[in-house]
């Protein structure tokens, strides 16, 4: 296995959901994901930031093989993913859900929850399975393991539930973990603990991790590379520090300006926020999708032509006509 090779390669991925009237008349498409390309290497962590409806969860579902892409290709560990090898793909990808309580079956205890993926995928013999369960529980620090094995999800705190979800994602020894807002439902004092844990298992197993969030302030505690999504497209890709210091896309700038750090001064001034809301993805605006809300819109350009990706600084990509 190439340790520095490409683990996941996404090219021109489009995922559209069909809209129907009365159940059978075609009424257009929701373009939830509209042309996304990137490569993720083995052991690399990547964060995708976007608001609700920006397509980040659809991207994740497409990567997990839960929704078939409309156009574009997905390559995992050098193999093209299609309908035939989805089972193989899902064994390699662990999924950490947003709401731990909703993601854990209430009628199964911890042992059964961790055993389930191995039974479904026919992994190992009973003794090996038992050993694997203990191993992952220790890894996520649900110790002493003996105390936790018979417990049911409602007996665990929110942080412990999220640890269990991570343990379940790890139990098949995946190469990639996708985490959909893993800390947004948790209290501040627990969030850091969970992000630390994800980071630690990522390093220990050389895992690829895709972390999806709407909260830019947690990003720098997790990964170097960050993508900003707006209305089904990736608008900016760069290093976290670079994005915070030198945001290029007007949307990224607005997003950064809107995030408060705890500071009394915040209450003394108004925030500079673009008016309006993200566009409908059924009839997205022509040209750049941010142009109706953008203060630096160039008439005749931004509202006509879709901006390609420019690279104004090495490793910093932005889809905006200002950087042509």
């Amino acid at each position: 296995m190439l340790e520095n090779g490409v683990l996941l390669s996404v090219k021109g991925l489009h995922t559209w959901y069909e809209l129907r009237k009365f159940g059978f008349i075609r009424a257009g498409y929701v373009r939830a994901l509209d042309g996304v390309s990137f490569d993720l290497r083995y052991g690399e962590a990547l964060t995708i930031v976007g608001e609700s409806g920006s397509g980040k969860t659809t991207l994740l579902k497409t990567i997990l093989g839960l929704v078939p892409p409309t156009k574009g290709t997905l390559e995992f560990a050098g193999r093209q993913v299609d309908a035939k090898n989805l089972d193989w793909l899902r064994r390699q990808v662990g999924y950490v859900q947003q709401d731990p309580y909703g993601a854990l079956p209430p009628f199964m205890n911890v042992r059964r929850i961790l055993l389930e993926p191995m039974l479904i995928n026919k992994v190992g013999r009973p003794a090996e399975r038992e050993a694997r369960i203990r191993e992952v529980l220790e890894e996520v620090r649900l110790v002493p393991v003996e105390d936790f094995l018979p417990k049911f999800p409602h007996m665990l705190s929110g942080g412990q539930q999220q640890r269990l979800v991570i343990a379940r994602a790890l139990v098949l020894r995946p190469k990639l973990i996708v985490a959909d807002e893993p800390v947004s439902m948790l209290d501040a004092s627990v969030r850091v603990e969970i992000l630390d844990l994800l980071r630690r298992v990522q390093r220990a197993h050389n895992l690829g991790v895709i972390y999806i969030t709407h909260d830019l302030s947690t990003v720098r505690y997790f990964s170097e590379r960050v993508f900003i999504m707006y209305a089904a497209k990736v608008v900016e890709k760069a290093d976290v520090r670079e994005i915070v210091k030198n945001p290029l896309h007007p949307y990224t700038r607005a997003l950064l300006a809107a995030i408060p750090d705890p500071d009394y001064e915040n209450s003394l001034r108004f925030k500079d926020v673009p008016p309006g809301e993200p566009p409908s993805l059924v009839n997205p605006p022509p040209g750049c999708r941010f142009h109706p809300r953008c203060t630096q819109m160039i008439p005749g350009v931004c509202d006509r032509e879709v901006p390609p990706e420019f690279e104004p600084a090495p490793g910093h990509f932005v889809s905006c006509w200002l950087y042509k």
Partner: protein
Amino acid sequence: MADHALTNLGPVTETPSSSETLLKVKDLRLYFRTTKGVVQAVDNVSFSLGRRRSLAILGESGCGKTSLARAILRLLPRNVHTFSGEIVLDGVDLMKMNDEWFRREIRWRKISFVPQAAMNALNPVLRVGYQIAEPLIVHLGVSREEAYKRAEEVARVVGLPVDFLNRYAFELSGGMRQRAIIAMALITNPPLIILDEPTSALDVLTQANIMNSLKDIKRKFDVTYILITHDIATSSELADEVLVMYAGHVVEHSPAERFYKTPMHPYAQKLMASVPTLREDKQLEFIPGQPPSLINPPKGCRFAPRCPKRFERCAEEPPLFALDGGGVAKCWLMAR
């Protein structure tokens, strides 16, 4: 926020005097009966709040902050075990009122409430405009036409386009629905508005937009806010004062100027240290362990088992000590 066409929303006190007390809460207790025992959700809480000030109540889930709001509003479930103390609003002791009197004279007229996730609780079969106007019609007996006129005014104040008033809730985005709820809270022109997690379900930009509107309203009208949230960074957008709760107790009440820079109580310090910041690099911390059960809370300081600074005296319950530069903290370290 230049796009806010602000109209006269009602009588505005000419000069805000922060010294005038609007709300005073003393020794408030709210205990619930459960099958496992009595839960001491709010235990001996005292604080006062000046007119036109805004108070942020911070704490983790289960610390009693929503129970405190519900106690002030007397929106109580059936399993109340103890509900005692003093709540004085504008010089009137609310605890002496009977329920019917409280409902008629206080709710909406004097205090309005924006509950958590209220935007999902709009009635799906009534137009948004009617729902905004309803408190005026029901509580103040205003005529329909006049109430609708006022609804248009408050909609403008909160940044809700007036033609949205004819729509139904499902035709509005989350941010617009939240604005409708805030408009509803404003329409009766109450002196006190309690907001329970008003922006936590919204996107970052929408959240910033709504915070802008709330600030704008506060500058222009005679309102006092109580903002209940677990999001410390966002609370700093609105707070003049901060009250931190832990396990049913108030552990610190400080002016915001100082609190966000130097919290005094060890719990507040740990909480601040766990907030990720965008602009500065800092080593994040987390608080090991869990808050105690409120059924049989530990004797002494309730934070002591998790506190890095605990010493012998913490076995005894600390009183609230006054701090230099205003505020109080419930910690023996503040004793002199």
